[in-house]
Each structure stands twice: as structure tokens, then as C-alpha cells.
């Protein structure tokens, strides 16, 4: 069953445009010029219960605006949105009971008070049974290592500590849907891993639906089965990560370490080309790129080994990062335009 459904979801911001300088500021007082900015453009989404969906795009693509419409904070300019069967803006309070939200750069807790004070109040607001709250607090303390943080005011926490605390605050009422807006921004690898594990655990054990916006593709690769890509407010891809990897990751790189320095040219099968032909200190290294729809790794390897003596070789496939880079650079936009 779809827990989130949007149909032609659209958001237009109206902003004033001022010419630069004092003259522009004075002119704007008498003749303000308004500009409409289309932040989200007719997005259709269906998200099933228990899915972990990565929602990605460049800065300003419309990710956060979409999340804010789904949470009920922003009123859509057009289209429909239903979250757990409700209109999130009109039924904001009822919707809020069923969701948890982490905005990576903001806190929902009381800045000057100890974490435990915030958690106690949040549990009270969401009417979590005291026994269940105690149980969850123990669990979260263990997974997120909160013990030493509970008595610490939020303002005294490091970024990583704050984010662990935010996650606990967003999930202490066991919401059905969690929106995580850049939850790992600026965090070190260890904290990132701990947070990812916590999200995985919540999804696995409670079937929590997770919508994750991030610029860290490690988050996407480790957590999401499905990725939604948005560009200039428009949805340009919605599907499994594997599909997008197949579609844009057709090139592989095979690197050889040779016994002797490379001198002459090497004959390669069709679809393969040289990336690095060792010179200077790397004269024992040969890197080739091939299109796996035209040839295979074994054919390329055979061809090379027939011509030079190879000590070692390795095969690498493009990471999600390089694929997404292609997409951000317009690969899908062009297809979409067609």
C-alpha cells in the first residue's frame, strides 16, 4: 500500500527582485517586482510502506521543498499530496503524529537544555507510553551511544553528537514515516556508519518508511533500494539503483601491471581504449576503458596478455558518484527533454 502519493505536486515561490544598489532598494519600495520561481514541477510519486527511498538532486533542485510539502509545513501551489491517506497541510497535527523529521542543519530540541529534557518532552507530546519510552530510550542509547550525551545541553554537543540526538528525537515515537533531510552532512565516517546502521535497523525491525535526501551517495548506496532524482524541480529518474548503474555504468576500467616497461602500441578489441599508457615512473602501468556492451573483461585481458607479460591486473566499475555526476551534468535531462 502506498503511504505517500503525490500527483502533479507543484510549488511556486513568489519573490521580489531588487536591482542592485541604493537606487534599486528605493525603487523596490515603490515598484516592487515579483518573480515566480518554480521550485517543484508536477512531481508524481508513489512510495510504499517500508521502502527506503533516496531523494537526490543538486542544490536548489527542489528536494527540501518537496519534503516540506510532504510533511505539511508548506502548502503546495498545485497538485495533490496524500500521506497515510491524509492531506498533510490541512491535517497537519494528525500527520505530525505519524511522521518523524530530521533537518540536518536544524534542531528540534531545546538548545539550552540537556538532551534528556528534550526527549522526555517529545515523548510526552507524542504520548509515548512511559514503559515503552524507557525501553526505546535504552535501545537508542545503546545503538546511538547516547548515554554520555543525555545530561549534556544540545549547545555543547559536537555535530555528530547532535545528529545522533536528533535521530533519537525524531524516532522516539516510532513514526511510520521518517524524512531525513541530509542527516549525515558534515559528519565523520564513524558517525555516518553508526547513523546508517541505526536507520537500517529501524527500517528492518519496524518497517519504517524512510525518505532520505542527501549529497552523500554512500548513504544512498548503503541504505536505499530506490532512488528518485530531481532536477530543476522535475523528476528525472525514479527506480532502482541497479537500473541506473546499468544504464550509465556501461564503462569499466581494467588496469594491468606489466613485467617490463611499456613501449609500443597494443592492439585492443573493439569498444576498448587506453586511458593510461605508462610513462615515467608509471611505465609498468596500463589502464584501459571498455564498453561492456561491446566487449568483455576477459576479451580485453586476453588481448593484452597475448601482447605483454602481465604481473597483476584489477577491474573497477564506476561508482554511483560518477554516475550521478553524469546525470547532474545533464545526461538524463537530455533524455527527458526528448
Amino acid at each position: 500500500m502506498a503511504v505517500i502519493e503525490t500527483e502533479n505536486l507543484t510549488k511556486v515561490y513568489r519573490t521580489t527582485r531588487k536591482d542592485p544598489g541604493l537606487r534599486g532598494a528605493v525603487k523596490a519600495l515603490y515598484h516592487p517586482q515579483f518573480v515566480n520561481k518554480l521550485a517543484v514541477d508536477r512531481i508524481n510519486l508513489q512510495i510504499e510502506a517500508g521502502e527506503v527511498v533516496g531523494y537526490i538532486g543538486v542544490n536548489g533542485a527542489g528536494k527540501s521543498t518537496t519534503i516540506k510539502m510532504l510533511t505539511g509545513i508548506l502548502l503546495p501551489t498545485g497538485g495533490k499530496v496524500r500521506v497515510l491517506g491524509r492531506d498533510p497541510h490541512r491535517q497537519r497535527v494528525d500527520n505530525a503524529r505519524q511522521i518523524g523529521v530530521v533537518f540536518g542543519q536544524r534542531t528540534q530540541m531545546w538548545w539550552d537544555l540537556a538532551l534528556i529534557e528534550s526527549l522526555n518532552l517529545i515523548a510526552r507530546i507524542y504520548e509515548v507510553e512511559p514503559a515503552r519510552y524507557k525501553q526505546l530510550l535504552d535501545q537508542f542509547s545503546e545503538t546511538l551511544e547516547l548515554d554520555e550525551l543525555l545530561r549534556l545541553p544540545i549547545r555543547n554537543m559536537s555535530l555528530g553528537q547532535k545528529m545522533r540526538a536528533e535521530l533519537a528525537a525524531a524516532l522516539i515515537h516510532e513514526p511510520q514515516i521518517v524524512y531525513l533531510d541530509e542527516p549525515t552532512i558534515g559528519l565523520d565516517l564513524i558517525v555516518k556508519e553508526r547513523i546508517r546502521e541505526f536507520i537500517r535497523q529501524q527500517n528492518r525491525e519496524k518497517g519504517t518508511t524512510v525518505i532520505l535526501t542527501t549529497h552523500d551517495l554512500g548513504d544512498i548506496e548503503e541504505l536505499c533500494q530506490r532512488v528518485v532524482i530531481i532536477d530543476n524541480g522535475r523528476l528525472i529518474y525514479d527506480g532502482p539503483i541497479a537500473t541506473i548503474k546499468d544504464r550509465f555504468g556501461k564503462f569499466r576500467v581494467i588496469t594491468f601491471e606489466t613485467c617490463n616497461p611499456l613501449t609500443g602500441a597494443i592492439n585492443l578489441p573493439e569498444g576498448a581504449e587506453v586511458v593510461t599508457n605508462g610513462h615515467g615512473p608509471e611505465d609498468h602501468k596500463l589502464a584501459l576503458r571498455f564498453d561492456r556492451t561491446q566487449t568483455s573483461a576477459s576479451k580485453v585481458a586476453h588481448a593484452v596478455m597475448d601482447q605483454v607479460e602481465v604481473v597483476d591486473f584489477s577491474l573497477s566499475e564506476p561508482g554511483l558518484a560518477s554516475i550521478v555526476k553524469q546525470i547532474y551534468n545533464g545526461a538524463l535531462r537530455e533524455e527527458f527533454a526528448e
Partner: protein
Amino acid sequence: MIHLMRRRAGIYAAFAGMVPKVFLAYSMWFWVGLVLNTIAMTILVFFWQAVYSNTTSIAGLDLNQTLTYILLAQIFAPLIEINMIFEFGYNLREGGIAHALLRPMDFQSGMYAQHMMQTFTALLLQIPMALVAWLVFGLRFPHDIQAWAVFVISALLGRTILFFFDWILACLTFYTTEVWGLGVLVYGLSLFFSGSLVPLAMVPGWLQTLALATPFAQALYVPLSFLTGITPLSQAPTVLAVQVAMLIAFGVCSRLFFRVAVRKVTVQGG
């Protein structure tokens, strides 16, 4: 139904309960506030003594009555402390409004609970100042229980009217996001129209009528006028009825304003 209401009231009470903890997180606030307020109170006492140096009565009030009024007005000044314009403005600019709207509770009721607790906490923290007024300036607290009872009811009504008024102004920040000018203007008006510096009985009739129509006077001058004997207790039913009518009118308007204004929310900074 009663169980549900009690449960909800408990939630709002818990929400409001955070206020004193936040207040007490910075003990320096308390001491600095105490010193500054005592200085302001001293200046006002000297000012009014100077004003009365060549006269025994102004608008029917003698020096003792005026000083009693002014000292009480300074002690009960938290009744007119409003900061929602700045609070909304800050939350809109910093994006904190997002989390505020995401709590599963009525936003306005939550803010009301918090603001009432803020006022109550601030009044408790005025006790040392009341001691200074009593020991240094010889303030004699009224001892008419009925006057105190009417004062408390009127102050509650007046503070709530002011809350709704402040809320309506704060809703304007959803459109402007600029708050400083409006905030400062409202603060200036509150000082004068609340009667915290000058008893409104001393201002010309038309200005008094105008001032009494503002929520500022309803929050401070009107309740204090019962406590200091400026308004006879026999007028309490009429005055309280007017306050109830104003409360309903401002309350309804504030709900309507918010319902429209919240559609204009933009969360700054992504």
C-alpha cells in the same frame, strides 16, 4: 472527553514547563535584569518626586498613589512583555518554524502555554524587585483581597488579549520576514499605552480612551487600576465584560490571521 482534555492539558503544561528551565539555564539573565530594572524603577521614583515637587495632586492622584502605581507597574511589567514578532521573525529566518509546525499539537495553544508560563516565571523573578520597592521606596502593597482577586482575573484576561494581538502582528512577518522595525515600534507603543510609565488617568480624555482600547492597557493599566484604587471595584463587572469581549474578538481574529498567513510560510535556508 474529560480524560482527553486532561491528557491534552498535561501535554501543554509539560510544553510550558520547559520555559523556567530555559530561563534558569542562564542565571546571568536574572542578575542583570534585576539590576537594570531596579535602576529603572529608581529613576522613575525620582522623576515622579520631581514632578510632584510643586503640586500635591495630578488628575486626582497624590504622590503616594502615583508612586504606588508606578512601583507596582514596574513590578508587574512582565505582563506587557511581548516578543512574538521577534520570535516568529527569528524562526522564519533561521528555519526553526519548520520544527515548530511539525509538533503534533495546536501551534497557537502551545505558544500560548509557553508565553503564559514565561510571564508567570518572569513575575516570580520580580520578587526581589518587589522587596527593594518595599524596603527602599516604602511601597505599601494593597491588602484588599477582593482587589487582588479582580486584579488577577483582569491581568489574566488582559495578558491573553495582548497575546492574541501580538500573534496577529507576528503573523505579518510571514509576509515581510522583516521584523526589527515593527518590533521596536510595538515595544515603544506598549510602554506608553500600557501605562507603565504614566498612569493613564493623567493623560487627556481622548488619549485615555484611545489607550484603553489597546491591548497594552488591558494587560497592565486596567488590572493595576483595580489594585491601586484608581478604578473602583464596583466597575469590575463592566470592565471584565469588556475584556472578555475583546479577548473573543482578538482570539477569533488571531486564528483567522494565522490560518491565512501559514500558507505563506517559506522556510529559509533550504
